[in-house]
């Protein structure tokens, strides 16, 4: 373990002496109303290098890069590209300066074709058809060159996220970007797709392009970057050469204290099955079959981890179990069958039967951001007689008291139940959701992406809580796209791909490589024949 060092700041990723600076940001500051998103940030990136940026959620990474791309305007500071000061007033200026950016949330028009998305804003003349024809040719060339094949006439909404990302990269290349910024590009990719992406980035780098990569994954930083900057609470804490640092050091720079990257847990002592799922099929509102007749079970005192790339049916699985998506098949809780359609199939009745659910998306599902913390603490349980004053009126005073107690037990900061949920940081928001669900002492806990968007410090705490619940003999179904998390928390791992369970593994008997293959739909294991075609 390397101790905290400031050497990086004095010798920022010493460049191969001849390479000039592609990007230099000096004293960038940006406030959104009362929130200071960037504070006096300096950063330099060498031409032809891959530069990583890491930091907790809300550290200001996306904001900084959006400023570089002209999406936001900095309150103060200067930007130098290739040594010359440029005034990036809007994205057009950034594009002319040779900058391209792939945003965390893609900026694509869903019902336009790939081609239309690529030429949008970079057309050659007033008429469309010549531009499209030219783009078609160029696109073909680009995709051959960089292994970026996509059907130019496909609608974006019909493409997988991986392909959508390719379109975003093609957009940048089509505009002849020399500097490419990617904001958390791998969150939605399989390990194989991610590897593919990194090969592309490597190729671009060899052509002399400069790449900035924002990510939460320390492994990616270690694997592909040349240098890395760490941000915390709007400030740049350090810039180091990748070769001279370690994941532990980076983690510490991010949160400002030492962090345990491993979970300490005793071996499981599973009991009787709590949840049994048989032949579960889910068809979504567009008529697409999302879950294709899967079987699984979770026993008391056990964590079943479901690994998989986002969008392979895990979300729908959780939704059906949580009661707000219809499905067909059989689900039994402690031997009793649950309704999968109709009026007895909703969040309320599931909760009444002892199923708690920490949803994947806390902003859109788990919380009402405009509600205060105490109102969120009863969300979904607001029919509980404990919270009522009489048949009509809720007992708000009592709810506030209970909320405060729960928040205290979960070390939520600031400890103010009257604050709106949106004023809490990501980690603390997640703690509010967990406090609500875990404190109910459920028989089965469904938990999706427990630490998505949560920084390393809070991850530690959340993991401890999950393990503690398991040790009380509860059944836990964990869905996560983070392989590290799956591997370190689960007692058993099932991998989902394209609505099927590709296989089940014990954490002790598998590794990231094998899971990654399963996540990509490739089963080489012993159970290949039996589940692969299900």
């Amino acid at each position, binding site marked *: 373990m390397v101790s905290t060092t400031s050497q990086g700041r004095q010798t920022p990723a010493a460049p191969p002496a001849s390479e000039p600076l592609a990007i230099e940001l000096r004293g960038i500051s940006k406030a959104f109303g009362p929130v200071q998103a960037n504070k006096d940030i300096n950063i330099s990136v060498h031409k032809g290098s891959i530069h990583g940026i890491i930091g907790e959620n809300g550290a200001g990474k996306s904001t900084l890069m959006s400023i570089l791309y002209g999406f936001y305007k900095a309150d103060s500071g200067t930007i130098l590209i290739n040594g010359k000061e440029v005034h990036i007033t809007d994205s057009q200026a950034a594009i002319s300066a040779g900058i391209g950016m792939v945003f965390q949330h893609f900026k694509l028009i869903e019902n*336009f074709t790939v081609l239309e998305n690529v030429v949008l804003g970079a057309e050659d003349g007033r008429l469309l058809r010549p531009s499209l024809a030219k783009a078609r040719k160029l696109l073909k060339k680009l995709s051959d060159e960089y292994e970026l094949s996509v059907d130019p006439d496909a609608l974006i909404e019909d493409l997988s996220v991986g392909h959508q990302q390719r379109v975003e990269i093609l957009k940048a290349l089509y505009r002849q970007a020399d500097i490419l910024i990617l904001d958390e590009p791998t969150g939605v990719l399989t390990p194989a797709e991610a590897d593919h992406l990194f090969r592309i980035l490597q190729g671009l780098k060899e052509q002399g392009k400069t790449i900035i990569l924002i990510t939460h994954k320390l492994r990616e930083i270690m694997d592909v970057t040349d240098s890395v900057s760490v941000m915390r609470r709007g400030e740049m804490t350090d810039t180091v050469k990748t070769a001279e640092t370690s994941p532990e050091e980076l983690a510490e720079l991010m949160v400002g204290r030492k962090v345990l990257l491993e979970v300490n847990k005793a071996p499981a002592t599973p009991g009787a099955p709590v949840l049994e799922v048989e032949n579960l099929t889910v068809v979504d509102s567009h008529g697409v079959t999302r879950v294709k007749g899967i079987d699984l079970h979770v026993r008391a005192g056990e964590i079943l981890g479901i690994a998989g790339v986002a969008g392979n049916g895990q979300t729908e699985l959780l939704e059906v179990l949580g009661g707000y998506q219809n499905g067909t098949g059989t689900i039994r809780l402690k031997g009793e069958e649950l309704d999968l359609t109709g009026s007895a199939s909703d969040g309320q009745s599931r909760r009444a039967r002892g199923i708690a659910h920490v949803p994947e998306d806390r902003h859109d599902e788990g919380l009402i951001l405009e509600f205060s913390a105490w109102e969120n603490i009863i969300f979904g349980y607001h029919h509980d007689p404990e919270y009522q004053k009489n048949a009509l009126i809720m007992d708000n005073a009592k709810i506030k008291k209970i909320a405060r107690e729960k928040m205290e037990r979960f070390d939520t900061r600031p400890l103010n139940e009257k604050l709106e949920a949106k004023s809490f940081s990501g980690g603390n928001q997640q703690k509010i959701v967990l406090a609500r669900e875990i404190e109910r002492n459920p028989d089965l806990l469904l938990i999706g992406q427990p630490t998505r968007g949560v920084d390393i410090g809070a991850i530690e705490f959340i993991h401890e809580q999950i393990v503690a619940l398991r040790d009380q003999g509860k059944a836990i179904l964990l869905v996560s796209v983070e392989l590290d998390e799956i591997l370190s928390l689960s007692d058993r791992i099932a991998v989902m791909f394209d609505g099927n369970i590709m296989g089940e593994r014990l954490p002790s008997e598998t590794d990231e490589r094998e899971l990654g293959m399963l996540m990509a739909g490739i089963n080489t294991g012993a159970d290949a024949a039996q589940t692969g075609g299900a």
Partner: protein
Amino acid sequence: MDYLTILQILDSTVRLATPLLLTCLAGLFSERAGIVDIGLEGKLLAAAFMSGAVAYVTGSIWLGLLAGVAASLAFSMLHGLASITFKGDQLISGVALNFLAAGLTVVIGQSWFALGGRTPSLSGNGRFGEWNLPFSDAWSKIPVFGPTYNELISGHTALTYIAILAVPVSWWVLYRTRFGLRLRAVGENPSAVDTAGVSVVRLRYLALVIAGVLCGLAGTYLASLAAGFVKDMSAGRGYIALAALIFAKWRPWYALSATLLFGLLEAIGNRYQSIAIGDFVIPVQFMQALPYILTVVILAGFIGKAIPPRAGGTPYVKER
């Protein structure tokens, strides 16, 4: 029903559909750019008033047209100020525009002409003349084609032909030009347009300019047809155009059919005020409410789902 009656009903349909079509296309441009526009009614009224007033004073409907377009544009820009620049609620802004138009036209009209908000009657060059297309007389003897050409195709005012021409032009602009691509994009996902280096604000204002011009034409058409302005003379046509727009699923050619359909319904309703089916007489009120009922039925998805532009109704806010 003989052929001539049918022709006359169709002819009436064209006249009634013209202002609807122009207004509907105005709404199309604005909503395709993501600006919901329930202020169409107000713009229509404002344009009808200004064109009527100026056409009377100058004796030229073409000058009236300019003034009508200017009035409608001014309202459009106010809508833009509220909903683009200040990111206000587009629906509220539209409601306010309708109030303003209903009040201002009468207040100003009264202080100009002292006729209770009415303008004096227009005559001569103060109105659009009917255009008789070549050979309409010579061919009128040819069976079927002759009367059709003479009655239905020929003999409308310039604005009718402009309105019909506006349909392919709108289609071409939307689907064949760079501007159209960007306009459609900004109604779907403005931040994609922004990050592609194109100004969302500029595009949306341009869309409102087009909408303003088209509404101006529609209002002028009304003033010319009725030979002057009468208070509240838009009589809900802005709302019907909005309904037609949904009906048309925000597409130019469909807009033509939708407005023609509404025009036809009205034309039939005018001619056959109460239709008897056996002993049952369909009440007039039903005939009058039919376009609205139809819209609801269509909205209910019985005839196909209408998916509005995705970013419609929401201001583009980058920084909370």
